[in-house]
């Protein structure tokens, strides 16, 4: 879920389309929108330091969506619901993330979808984090070499 919510929408859509296009016509999943994408505000709670009292830091825009998979049931025979809560107000991103969340619970799709979508996204996110850490790391200043009064 975190991977779906944090993925860049364009890349997520590209990978999802790639996976869905590879399915035979008969296996194409269908969904019912139980709750269409809707934007709202969520209060963020924060603490200043480990011993600080919690306070309301501010509100954040969140878009949520819930779908039901119509072309399959869970291992226990119950209907499969997919839900997504994403930061920001991109309804298409929330809808796609909710659909993929539902497919990831479907026995016939889970493993293939994990390989086709989730693993590449996780790899890319890790690489982006490492790249960012490298860029920041390059500007690190080694204070202990600045010693005054010698020579």
């Amino acid at each position, binding site marked *: 879920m975190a991977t779906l919510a944090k993925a860049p929408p364009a890349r997520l859509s590209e990978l999802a389309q790639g996976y869905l296009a590879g399915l035979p016509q008969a296996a194409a999943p269908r969904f019912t929108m*139980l*709750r269409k994408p809707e934007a709202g*505000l969520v209060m963020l709670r924060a603490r200043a330091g480990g011993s600080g009292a919690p306070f309301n830091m501010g509100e954040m825009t969140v878009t*949520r969506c819930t779908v039901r998979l119509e072309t399959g049931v869970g291992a226990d025979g*119950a*209907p499969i619901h997919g*839900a997504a809560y994403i930061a920001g107000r991109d309804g298409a991103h929330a809808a796609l993330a909710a659909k993929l969340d539902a497919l990831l619970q479907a026995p016939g799709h889970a493993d293939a979808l994990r390989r086709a979508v989730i693993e590449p996204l996780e790899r890319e996110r890790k690489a982006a984090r490492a790249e960012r850490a490298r860029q920041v790391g390059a500007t690190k200043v080694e204070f202990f070499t600045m010693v005054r009064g010698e020579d």
Partner: protein
Amino acid sequence: MFDPAPHTDPGPDAGLGFADPVLDAAACFRAILDAMAQPARPVALRRRPTPPAPLPAEAAAIALTLMDRETPLWLDPAFASPAVADYLRFQGGLRFADRLEDAAFAIAPIAAAASLIPKLAIGTAVYPDRSATAVLVADGLESGAAATLSGPGFEAPRRFAPAGADAAFWRAAEANGALFPQGVDLLIAAPGALAGLPRSARIQSAVEQGED
């Protein structure tokens, strides 16, 4: 602002909410406003959600339009089921009242109204707005015991006969009106239409003495 935690699970046989949540709820709100402004006059309710049985679509439309987690709902056993509770929590973020007197809204069949109305909150003399609103489900708005009503919102006395209304219903409505400015407001939901019966409506003559 929505509250994500308590209503993320739609339940096993979930119905659907309004097709267009914002505009449909606004249209339904307008219908309720018209119904309350011109009491005892049927107002069409076209845009309805599809709730799970046994909750009627019109009652669900009113619930999704007016109620949220700050207005505890008391649901009559005739309309209560786990699927309905899941539906109202998921689509509307509703909270349920454990006791009838704590409810801000009640949904019940009109046959249960006579025993229900006296138990609902009527507000206080200082805060008459802290009263409950009852949504009464009827099969129609024409074929029951009739009463002639007048009061604010009536151009002329009007005859009103919701299906399922009987003498006991009109006695309860009359006793409720006598509490004014305290008292309960009634919304009568029939297939495709609703009518309002606010506490300000005066019941002139109950049971068939129409003065058309």
